[in-house]
């Protein structure tokens, strides 16, 4: 008898029904898994190809835009300089006080021929040395200073010195902060 035999008896004779069910389930799971791997593989592959092509196109576009912007670097430089310079000019304008208004305040404190000297220091403190012919004039000056203080045209007034000479001339030094 040859080794190759034809056996007409069912080969699964004697196998348990449970084992058959397990085999069927395993077969189904295997085919579903294979199909899923294939489908997900296709999806991921398509996504990869799309991303690659879009990325290349976007890189080309970004490169072209960068070259165009570099070609406009003169304008960009001018704009940058203009914005920065304008901010500086704005700060410079704000820092400059309108000292011309001090003269109006001084003329309201006393007549111009009463002044010996007037000085404004870096802290905006005005110090005036006046020479007045009488105490009454001095009183008028002080009254004017108080009045201007109430009108908020100056603040922190002080009489720094007050002296009378033998001839009755009053020498007075006052200081105040003019409100500009």
């Amino acid at each position, binding site marked *: 008898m040859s080794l190759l035999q034809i056996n007409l008896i069912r080969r699964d004779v004697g196998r348990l029904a449970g084992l058959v069910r397990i*085999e069927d389930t*395993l*077969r189904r799971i*295997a*085919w579903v*898994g*294979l199909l899923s*791997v294939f489908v*997900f*593989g296709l999806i*991921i*592959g398509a*996504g*990869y190809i799309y*991303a*690659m092509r879009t*990325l290349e196109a*976007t*890189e080309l576009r*970004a490169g072209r*835009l*960068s070259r165009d*912007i*570099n070609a*406009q*670097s*003169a*304008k*960009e*430089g*001018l*704009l*940058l*300089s*203009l*914005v*920065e*310079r*304008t*901010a*500086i*000019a*704005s*700060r*410079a*304008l704000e*820092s*400059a*006080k309108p*000292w*011309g208004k001090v*003269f109006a305040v001084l003329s309201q404190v006393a007549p*111009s*021929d009463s*002044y010996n*000297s*007037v*000085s*404004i*220091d870096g802290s905006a403190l005005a110090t005036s040395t006046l020479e007045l012919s009488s105490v009454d004039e001095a009183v008028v000056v002080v009254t004017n200073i108080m009045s201007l203080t109430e009108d908020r045209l100056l603040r922190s007034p002080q009489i720094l010195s007050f002296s009378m000479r033998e001839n009755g001339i009053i020498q007075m030094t006052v200081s105040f902060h003019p409100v500009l």
Partner: protein
Amino acid sequence: MATLTQTVRTHKDVLISTAILLFCILAVFIALIPAGRKTFGLLEEMRTLRDKAQLLTEKLTTLEALSEEDLRNELSTVLSAVPADRAFASLFETVEGVAGRSGVTLVDMSISGAATLATPSASRLSAAEKKLGTRTVPFTVTINGTLSALEQFITLVPNVRRLLRIRAFSLTFPKTERPISITIEMDGFYEPLPTNLGATNAILPRLSEAHEAVVARLSDMPLLGERSTALPPPFIGKVKENPFAP
């Protein structure tokens, strides 16, 4: 061998299913997961690059809408107010111009401070300059004139180009009919121009309405000195790799 063959033949379906399952598991861990990560990475990179391209497009659109001529003219106006260097010539000319307009006599003008010879790059910002945000050229002016002329001078100084600031002054009223003398401590402003444009995708600065108002105000101010500050070269910001190359 016959047993093996018989076993294989008997459990052929199970073996095939198991092999397929193993292949699927390997395919997931070796191929699908890395490919998925790579793809997500590419999508993220694509999103980032798209945003960058959008910014570049907006920047290019803004630049193309600007007129280089208008920018040059406006910058020239602002530079005449705050030049890029000390520009002593425009300083003297401006003070002389103000003196001429107000009818005072310019007796003396001297530059003070230790920075008269140092280039702007060598000078350090003082605390006051840091607070102000710009460099200053301190100088002293002595003028003679009537009280009204002196008042006109002091009133005019903050309202001319180049921009000047009065820090302190002292008036002396003579007893005789001589004109009144005044010594004024002043500052002129200057600031070197920027030399770095930044990256191509750097955000473009905008000229706000406040900036435009400042430019308009400066345009209205009389220019008493000659425009001695040269306009910047047409190409700002690029530094030669070899500065000595032609």
